[in-house]
């Protein structure tokens, strides 16, 4: 499956989804002018990734542990809706017995960002590992 890499701008995050490295990262600022246009291709890619993992599980192929990293500095409220959608897809992947962990990075002084991660984790009922930097 082809990786999905989108360079960051001052309103959109860096997307580095490289299945061969077993690590998917979203980092930076997220307040796209058109939030749907930005996030829908990302959700579509993750759905395809999820389907590919499911077929590997059915074929009993070995899957290395996957780490999904949220390294956001800021996201606006409409991005939050799409981050929730991403987490729901990650939850579906976990439920197919794929070893996938979610890490939420935040500045140790930025309690708002940690709380925003806790809210999303609680809302989706998916546990995160919180990493203070």
């Amino acid at each position, binding site marked *: 499956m082809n990786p999905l890499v989108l360079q960051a701008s001052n309103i959109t995050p860096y997307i580095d989804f490289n299945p061969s490295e077993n690590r998917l990262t979203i980092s930076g600022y997220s307040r796209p*002018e058109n939030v*749907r246009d930005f996030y829908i291709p990302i959700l579509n890619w993750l759905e395809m990734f999820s389907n590919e993992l499911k077929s590997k599980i059915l074929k009993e192929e070995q899957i290395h542990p996957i780490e999904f990293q949220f390294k956001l500095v*800021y996201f*606006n*409220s409409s991005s939050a*809706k799409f981050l929730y959608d991403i987490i729901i897809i990650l939850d579906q992947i976990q439920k197919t017995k794929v070893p996938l962990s979610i890490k939420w990075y935040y500045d140790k002084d930025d309690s708002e960002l940690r709380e925003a991660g806790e809210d999303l984790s609680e809302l989706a009922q998916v546990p995160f590992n919180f990493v203070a930097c």
Partner: protein
Amino acid sequence: MEKGEVLINHYGPLSYEEIGFLLNKMTSLLERYNFGITIRKKVYSAMVESLENIYKHQDIIRDSNNYQPKFSLTLENDKIDLSCSNSLLKAKVVPLKERLEKVNQLDKVGLKEFYKEVILRGNVTQKGGAGLGIINIAKVTENKLEFTFDDIDEQYTYFTLRIKVSLQNQNN
């Protein structure tokens, strides 16, 4: 710097680029005056949500240069005030007022629950609005929102939202 000083004052059309410019200006001003990350992030969130609300939801009055979008950021002794105004169709006043009154009635836990409820409802409009902006402003600032609707004509009103970010009891 004297207290009660207007740090940013904008009047005129508001593009997405202009929002970015105003955010950069705010960030460098608050950094220069040594406000910590907590205050800067609260102001940043409130500014993004309120300016994006104007950008997405304003109703521009045709053939008129009056009642353009307005934004100001003022540093007071104990708070940072944000004020933002835009023209709006009167037909939108009732649901907006209801939303503002509802968030003002909720405490921190209630706002969190309301925020979750709206995310789970899952609608994002073509303009990119998820209905979360005002809830998020109240949630982040932990202060009541003040608002007015001033008549322009039969069709339009001038909506003003005033947001307060407290400086006391914060690690600023």
